[in-house]
Structure formats: structure tokens, C-alpha cells
């Protein structure tokens, strides 16, 4: 094994004023303790003392803290926002870690060891050497059904998810299908109802038996949870109304893919629309082939 050369050794980093990866060591320890318990109890939300970060709530403060607690000098970091590497949120978080941790960053899914994401899972199948870090706005899947947090904790303890099932039943009774195209709740390991974060239903099946570890961080709500590799993750559904991941029926107008998840883009002022891959790395790779 090669010895680590600390990439943030004095003179080697642009940011001497901060600890490696911005957070102090006591905070990292607290987050690390929460992460290990989260892995041991798949799908259960662990409260943690989320810190103020140098960007506003809603911009991925939870995900950034999880990434900062696990990140090391040998990691290669990829950050995506709705699948894209080149949007404001992804660019600023990638720059943040390049600056405070001096880590290597990439836009290639295949090269990354840690992928921080807002609302997508990459198209390319993940591997055992990768860790996904999700930015989560609202970790509580029962939030819109039961506003009292003390009560939702009790419902999780009892495994009583009838509220969510009734909600799904009513959606199906009224409109023939689930009302949630994204953030569709999942059962993890047959025990905990979990918010997959606002990923499209299209990505829900990728949570099931994934070779990669999945970590979820909610900064404003101060919760961390996890799905270990090779864990059963089932989207909430009924036997006679199985969960159907949705995808626009078009092909990508840039790479022609008929299987990737598509964004709809207004192309002109005549109401013309085109569809392109939401995963920019996947699209570039398909175009290169």
C-alpha cells in the first residue's frame, strides 16, 4: 500500500485556513458515527447536528456534510445536479471540494469513487467501489401525511405505514396511477419506509440491490440515512397496481438513446420541444461511440 501524501500539506493547498474538507474533526466524528448507525439500520433516519455550511439550505448542505465526512485524498469526486455535471449547483459543490480538500474531481461516472447527487442516479450501472451521496430536502416520507415529527417517529417505530398506503390507494382510485412521478416512497429491507429523495420514479429500481453504498444527507432537517449495498428496496405499490417507473417515450435528440431518462426542453417560441438525456456524462459517452 502506498503511503498517503497529504494533498493539503502546507504549501500544497490554496486554502490553509480550513481543515481538510472544511469540517472540523469533531463534526466529522459526529457525522461518521451517524453514518455507521445508518448503515446498520437500513432506511432509518438518524438525527445529526448539521452545521451551517457556506451555502444556503436547499443547495445540498446535507450531502456536502456527508461527503466531507467520508472524503479522503485518494477519492475522485463527481457531483451532479439533475444528472448534469455542468449546472450551477454541481459546479459550485465540485469547486468547493477541489478548493477545501484539493481532491481530484471528474465528470465521468466510471472514474468517480464518490458521486454526490441532487435528484438523479447515473445511467451507468454503479460498482462496488463507488459511494452515492444524495442531497435530501425532506427526509420524512410521511411528512405530507402527518406533520408532527414525534408522531412520525412513533409510526416508524411501529412500522405503521397505513397513511402512505391509503394515500397511494386514493391516488390510484382517483387518477388510475400513483400521484408521485418523483420522490416515490420505498420500503427498505421490508422494514422502514424511506424517501428516496426527489429522484424520478425511473431511478427507484436502481436503489434495489445496488452494488454501491447509498448515503442520504438532509442538512436543514438534520437527518442522515443509508441504503447498504445489496439491500432490498421496493417502491411502495399494490399487487394489482405494481409500481411503474416512467420515462418520456421519445429518444434523446443529442445521442438517440431510447432507454435513458429524458429532460423535456422548450426549443423555440413556437412551442417546439426536444428531449435530451438528463445524464450529461451518459449522453456524451453514447455520442462518442
Amino acid at each position, binding site marked *: *500500500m502506498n503511503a*498517503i501524501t*497529504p494533498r493539503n500539506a502546507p504549501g500544497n493547498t490554496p486554502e490553509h485556513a480550513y*481543515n*481538510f474538507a472544511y469540517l472540523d*474533526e*469533531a463534526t*466529522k*466524528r*459526529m457525522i*461518521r*458515527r*451517524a*453514518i*455507521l*448507525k*445508518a*448503515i*446498520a*439500520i*437500513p432506511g*432509518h433516519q*438518524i*438525527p445529526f447536528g448539521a452545521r451551517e455550511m457556506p451555502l444556503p439550505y436547499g443547495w445540498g448542505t446535507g450531502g456536502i456534510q456527508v461527503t466531507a*465526512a*467520508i*472524503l*479522503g*485524498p485518494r477519492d475522485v469526486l463527481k457531483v451532479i445536479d439533475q444528472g448534469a455535471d455542468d449546472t450551477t449547483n454541481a459546479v459550485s459543490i465540485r469547486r468547493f471540494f477541489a478548493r477545501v480538500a484539493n481532491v481530484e474531481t471528474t465528470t465521468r461516472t466510471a472514474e468517480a469513487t464518490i458521486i454526490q447527487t441532487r435528484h438523479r442516479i447515473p445511467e451507468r450501472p454503479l460498482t*462496488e467501489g463507488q459511494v452515492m451521496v444524495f442531497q435530501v430536502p425532506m427526509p420524512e416520507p410521511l411528512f405530507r401525511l402527518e406533520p408532527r415529527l414525534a408522531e412520525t*417517529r*412513533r409510526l*416508524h*417505530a*411501529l412500522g405503521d405505514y397505513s397513511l402512505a398506503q391509503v394515500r397511494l390507494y386514493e391516488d390510484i382510485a382517483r387518477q388510475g396511477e400513483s400521484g408521485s412521478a418523483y420522490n416515490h416512497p420505498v420500503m427498505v*429491507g421490508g*422494514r*422502514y419506509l424511506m424517501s428516496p429523495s426527489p429522484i424520478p420514479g425511473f431511478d427507484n429500481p436502481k436503489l434495489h*440491490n445496488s*452494488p454501491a*453504498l447509498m448515503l442520504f444527507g438532509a442538512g436543514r432537517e438534520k437527518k442522515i440515512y443509508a441504503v*447498504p*449495498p*445489496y*439491500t*432490498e428496496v421496493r417502491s411502495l405499490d399494490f399487487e394489482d397496481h405494481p409500481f411503474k417507473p416512467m420515462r418520456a417515450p421519445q429518444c434523446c435528440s443529442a445521442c438517440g438513446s431510447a432507454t435513458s431518462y429524458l429532460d423535456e426542453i422548450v426549443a423555440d417560441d413556437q412551442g417546439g420541444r426536444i428531449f435530451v438525456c438528463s445524464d450529461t456524462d451518459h449522453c456524451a459517452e453514447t455520442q462518442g461511440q
Partner: protein
Amino acid sequence: MRPAFNDPVFGAQESFRALMEAMARPGRIQRCDVLPDLPEALAPSAAAALLTLADAETAVWTDATGEAREWIAFHTGAPLVADASKAQFLLATGTMPALATLDAGSDETPQDSATLILQCETLAEGAGWRLSGPGIEHEHRLGAAGLPADFTAQWAANRQGFPCGVDLVLCAGARLAALPRSTRIEEAG
């Protein structure tokens, strides 16, 4: 006093990644060898795990005495408690405390349960127990020597209480493997 991590930031980070990988893939052995100069009673992987996770906010129990106990108290800064059931982290260098006597958390807060770092004689992959559960695709095999004779019975009772339960980190020398409470153990048949 013997030293802790050469580099507190990267020593802890490297140890944590080994722990996280071990916890996420129960029964897979990780190497954690960042503490070359330790009191004799402490295994490098066990000491690194405790140093990575424990601090002034966590109650620690250990059966280590003398220099090893002083090393733990000084470098972690954690309050050492005499009652194992009150500890958030435990480091057992000799006999394993009975799992049923440790804090298993509650139904609403199963994350408050204890983590037991247990030094054993040897760890080997590919033979021994058959492990299944979250983190394991088909089956992982793990062999550990030097555990109590009724270990698998104790573990089955611990597993029964899921989501409550104790999480275990097994350490032998610089090698460690973890058994989160969700893991099922079958004796080799």
C-alpha cells in the same frame, strides 16, 4: 505515552473508510494499519476504530487496564464508564461482555445502541460462518477465533431485536470486519 494517529485528519479518515466499508459489507475483511506503536494489549485496528469514533461526547467502556487504558482515556478524551450497559462504544480486549447486557437502543431511537469493538484471535474470509442480510449479495463467509462458545446464540438473540441491537466490529491485528445488527449468522454446515 505512546502516540495516536501520525496525522489526525488522514489517520481518522482512512480508518473510517475501512469501518464504513466493513459495516456496509458485513464479513468482508478490511485492513486498518495506521497505528504502528501501541500499548501491547491493543490491536491496531481496534484502537484505530475507537480513536476514529469516540470523543468527549461518547461514553466508552473498556476492560483494558494499565497503559492501554491510559492510552484510550488520553487520546480519545472520552469519559470511561465502569458499567458496560451505559457505554456507547466498548472495546473488549479479553472476554466479550454479554451482548444482552449492552444498550440496544429503543424502537424509536435504535441508533442509540452500543457499538462493541471486540478483539479476537484471528479473522479469516472464505470459511466459517455463512453470513446473509443487507450488504451481502449472496453469502459471505467469515471465520473468527477466540469468541465465546455461545456467540452465535447471543448474536441470534441480538438479531431478533432488529431494528434495536448492538453492532459489532471484530478486530484481529490490523484486520477488521463488522457485523451490523441486521446480519444473520449461520454456523458452517
